[in-house]
Structure formats: structure tokens, C-alpha cells
């Protein structure tokens, strides 16, 4: 670019010949254009801020949803399916699913029928890192295949890395049906965490408080 391309008719009062050779300096000297350019930046900044609101709202939408909005009472079937003194695996369809969930919308849980109307419904997810625990009738233990967490038949911690017992669902009996309040993957940070994690981990302490002390109503 040379000076020759510049329209010669326009007045350029404050520009020295050397500065006109550099396009940036030439623009800077045009205070009106520089101002308009700055203004356009602010304008785009404002538009960006307006646009950011719905984008952030869309992105953070799931984060602001309350736990309770996902949960609802669903039936696990008639009580007669669960013989007294036994712990059985039950599958249910998550109350909230989407069209693309497929088989991941199915959830398994362990139902322990103690006696009469006394039940315990355990989440399948280990309280350590969420792997599926398996029930062993003979040794009356739940064992986790991932890092070796083990739980007693009442869900209290027996050994391994979990810092608490198994997650439990709230249950109720409606007519002849066993109902649970379910809807989301239980983790240490949501309402599945009915009992606070043990602060003191003593391997044998769980035997003493084994008797069914804290059932969610």
C-alpha cells in the first residue's frame, strides 16, 4: 500500500507524512472511526452477554434441577414376590427416561424383606464408586467387584474402601405393592445419601448398630 492509493482530496490535518505510511496510525488518527470501532466492540460485547444468558441457562439447566423433581413413587411389584428373610434383585424402569435412553433406563436394586412390613431396598451402586454390588446369600454379604467393598445384609459397611453403608431407597407399602421413591443414580451428594458417611471407620462398629436402627420412612 502506498500513499498514491489514498484519496488526495480529503483533508488530513494532523497527520505527518511518515504516519500516513502506516495504516494503523492512519486509522488511529481518525478519532471518529476509532470511536466507532470501539463502540462496535462494546456493542458486540453487549450482544455476547445477552447471548450468554440463554446459552448458560441451557448448559447449566440440569445443574439447577432439584433432586425431588426427578423422583417419584414407583411399584416394585406385589409383596408376595419377596419372601421373608430373603434379599432379591429387582429391575424397574426409571420414572424419568428419554427416548434415547434404551436399556440404560432400566435400573436394578436389592430388596430385603426382613419380616412383615419391614423392608430394606438397597441401590445397586456401591457407596464407594458406584459399581454394581452382588448379594451372596450364604455369607450374607454384598460384594463389589471393582475395589472390593463389602456390606452386611442390612447394608452397613463390612470392609473395603466404602466410607458408609449401601444407599437405600425410601419405601412404602401401598395395598399389596412395595413402592420405592426412585428416579436418580444415588451418589454421595444427592438425596440418596440418607445417612451421613461415617466419619470414624471402625470395622467392627457396624456389628453393634446392626439392628435396624434408621429406616427411611
Amino acid at each position, binding site marked *: 500500500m502506498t500513499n498514491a492509493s489514498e484519496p488526495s482530496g480529503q483533508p488530513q490535518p494532523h497527520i505527518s507524512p511518515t504516519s500516513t505510511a502506516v495504516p494503523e496510525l492512519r486509522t488511529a488518527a481518525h478519532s471518529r472511526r476509532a470511536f466507532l470501532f470501539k463502540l462496535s466492540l462494546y456493542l458486540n460485547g453487549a450482544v455476547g452477554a445477552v447471548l450468554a444468558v440463554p446459552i448458560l441457562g441451557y*448448559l*447449566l439447566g*440440569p*445443574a439447577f*434441577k432439584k*433432586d425431588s423433581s*426427578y423422583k417419584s413413587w414407583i411399584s416394585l411389584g406385589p409383596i408376595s414376590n419377596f419372601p421373608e428373610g430373603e434379599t432379591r434383585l429387582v*429391575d424397574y424402569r*426409571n420414572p*424419568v*427416561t*428419554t*427416548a*434415547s*435412553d*434404551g*436399556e*440404560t*433406563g*432400566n*435400573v*436394578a436394586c436389592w430388596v430385603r424383606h426382613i419380616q412383615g412390613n419391614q423392608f430394606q431396598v438397597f441401590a*445397586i*451402586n456401591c457407596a*464407594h*464408586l*458406584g*459399581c*454394581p*454390588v*452382588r448379594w*451372596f446369600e*450364604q*455369607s450374607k*454379604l454384598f*460384594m*463389589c*467387584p*471393582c*475395589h*472390593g467393598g*463389602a456390606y*452386611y445384609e442390612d447394608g452397613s459397611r*463390612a*470392609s473395603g*474402601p*466404602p*466410607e458408609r453403608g449401601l444407599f437405600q431407597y425410601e419405601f412404602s407399602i401401598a395395598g399389596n405393592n412395595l413402592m420405592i421413591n426412585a*428416579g*436418580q*443414580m444415588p*451418589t*454421595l*451428594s*444427592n438425596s440418596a445419601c440418607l445417612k451421613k458417611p461415617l*466419619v470414624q471407620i471402625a*470395622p*467392627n462398629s457396624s*456389628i453393634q448398630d*446392626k439392628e435396624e436402627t434408621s429406616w427411611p420412612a
Partner: protein
Amino acid sequence: MAGLKQRVVNVYGWFERRVGFEGPIREASAHPTPPTSASWWYVFGSAATVLLMLQVATGILLALVYTASAGEAWASLQFLNHSIYLGWFLRAIHGWGSDFMVAIVLIHMVQVFLFGAYKYPRELTWIIGVFLLLCTLGMAFTGQVLRFDQDAYWGLGIGASIVSRVPWIGGPLVHMMLGGPIIGGQTLSRFFALHVFVIPGLLLAMAAVHVWMVLHLGVNEWPMPGRIVSKATYDREYHELTSKQGVPFVPDAAWKDAVFAAAILLSVIACALLFGPFGPSGQPDPTIIQTAPKPDFAFLWIYAVLAYLPPELETPFLFIAPIVVIGAMLLLPLVAGEGEKHWSRRPVAVLMVAVIAVTLSVFTHLATFTPWSPLMEAWSGDPTPTAYLKGRSPLERQGALVLQDKQCRNCHALGGAGGMRGPALDAIAARMTEDQIIRQVLQGGGNMPAYGNALSPAETRALVAFLMTLRGNNLSPATDASHTITQSGAMRIPSTRSPQSSVPSP
């Protein structure tokens, strides 16, 4: 023929006149490189870039068929493996390319670290490299999720469980990660977006800046012991070196990069042909709980660390350690931007690499056979060694049955078969007395559950009788030292059962 050649030159000239790439490319490729840096040690960065290109290309090809829907992803992978011509091969190349890329990026990082190449003026190149490593690991993890099988499903569960431990905002973060209340369609969709758009975009952009900075600052010279990097003198010294002795990057150094890149690509192809694609393993049905999920190779060490951490340390460790490690990597060039480059003058650096490499290898090795996990089928599947049953009383044999039936074998090995969570029981009676065994079985402790509620008195008696026969290669049975003392009368307790006592009664 000459006419054709002329026509090609003309067409090239037509484009070059309009695009103008030739000048910058010629300049970049001929940039002077220290002759010592035209080395086989300097080929890993370019190999990582070539692998990135391979991953982009094969990834796009896989996306032609893959269905990013939780209900259909697994089936579309089976379709790719079995019904699409050479679909299995493309999956295998993408999978092995991923493993190779993680490995090469790590090797590149170690080389740069040991050669002091992160020092002035290449600090920012290193810092961007750290983010490139994180992106590469991010691609490996999200890629494992897209292989939407049992391992991916429960791997997401592990991820969500870890995220849930974040103080205060753990719950919202889990919902952000999963996109909903459970691992499902929206979870896969967002990991698809991360794996296909977000992280590759970051990776390509940062790799471009990374390469640009290498061109801009020049390839690191071969470090020499005693040649100190100083901000005051380095630029002049480097300029002197390259202007006096420098060789053009192309072809003097580039041919080694090209040969190594070709060798790496051939290795990826060979692994793909020999070992085939990764999975998918079982279908991602959460009601199928007969599974032992495991992460991919690059994350096995984390799997092991999570098994060995004491429970009360786990949450702090999970969130403090990554910040410390990544922070240290980012701050390294800013803190140690000058001084010695040569590894022989940086013993701490060499020691760090050695310790980290050994640690990661050991944890990875442990995670390949997970000694901390109970073997879920050992109790019903592993036979009791016949030597342990020969000549035993009915009660002892009954005890052997109890041992199997109560799943003891899931954690305890007999004759080399069974779980490794607890100690092998082959010589248990040589280590523990009968009283100790009874106490341990009934009350547990030392990371063993208490079996008091799961064993009847008869079962306990039989089990202990059997365990008391297990003395390895006829070792002498364990004795309780206090028994000997009390029986010998050393405690000055009158005893009628130790007539041979050598201590005279007072």
C-alpha cells in the same frame, strides 16, 4: 510429457499466485535447526501430531456409522465390527491409535523434561503441552465412554461418584455430567459432543499454537552439561548457534521425523491387525450386574490408586492431588526457567521421572489382575486342592465345604486359586492359633467382614477344624506365647498341668 509437466507447473502457478502459501511454507520448513537437534530423540512431537491426524481421519470414518444414542450405540458398534466391510479394522486403528497417542505424548513429555527444553524461552510451549496432554487423556476417557458397553456404563458411574464428592457443588456437577438423573441418552450425547467437537477443537487449536511456537522459537538445542540457560544470554547464544551451524529443518532433520512417524503408523496398523478392535464388551444394561468393570489401559493406575487409598483419605486425595500435580507441571517452567538443561546435572529431575514411571507401572500392573477385588466365582468355581482333603476327618471335610459355601475363596486363595483380597489360607494354622482363627472368623477386622451372623456354631466349628489342618508344607502349628508362659508357671500362677516346669515354685 514435457507439455504435461509444463501444464502442471502452470496450474500450480495459477493457484500459488492466488493463495501465496509457498513463501511461508518454504520459510517454515527451511528454518535453521541446531545440527545436534536433528536427532532421533526429537521425533516424538511430530509423531504425536501425525497420530492426531490419524485419529481425526479414522474418527470421522467411524462417525459415518456410529450412532450416538444410548439405546443404539452398542448395537452400532457390533454392526461396525461385524457387518460393515473393514469396520472392525477402522475401529481397531482408532483404538490402538489412541493408546499409541497417549504413550507417545507421554514419551514426548519425558524427553522434553529430561532435555530441559521447557526452559527459557519455551516455557509457554511446555504449558500448552501440559494442556495438550490433558486433552489427549480427555479424548482417551471420552472415547472409552463412546464405546458404550458395560465398562463404559459403570466407568461413567465411577466418574459420577467421584464428581459427587466435590464439596458443596457435587450434586449439580453430577447432573451436569450426566445431563439428567441417570446415566442414559443425554450422558452419551454430551460425551459424544466432548469427544467429537469440544476436545478435538481445543486439541487442534492448541497443537497448532504449539507447533507454531516451535517454529517461532526454534527447536531446542541438544543440552550440554555446564551450558547454562540464562535469560540474558540465551537468545544471542541460540541465534549464534543456528546462524553459524544451523541446518535446514527440511530435509536435514525432517527425514527422521518422517521415518519415525511411518514406523509408528505401521505399528498401529500391525497392532490393529494382530489384536483387533477394543470391545465392545457386554451391552450397557444396568440390570446385568454380573460384570467387573475396568477402565482402559491409560487409566488403570487410577483404578489401582482408588483401591489402595484409605477410605478417609480418598476424597481429599481425589481433589487435591490432581490440582497439585497439574499445578506443578504448569508452574515448572516458570519456577525452573533457567539453569542447567542436561539431565546429568539434574539428578532430582531424573529421580522424579524414575519414581513416577515406576509408580505408574506398578499401579498399572496391579490393575491388570486387581488383587483387591473379590473373585465373584471363586467360591463355586475353584476346586479345593485334593491334598487338603486326603486323610481328613469328616468334620474337617465338612469345614472345607463351609469354606467354599461361605464364599471365603472369593477373597482367600487355596493352592494358588481364589481371590487375593485377603491372605492365602494354605498355611493359616502355622500363623494363627485356633483361638485367633475363631475370633477372626466371627468378628472380622483388618478389612475382613465379621461372619458371626453368617455362620452357625456347627459351621464355625467345622470351618475352624479344617483351617487348623492347613499348615503349608507341614509347618509347626502356631502357638500362643502367653499359653506357654502361663502353663510354665512363669506368671506365678499355680498350675497342675505343667509338672515339667523348670521354674521352681516359691
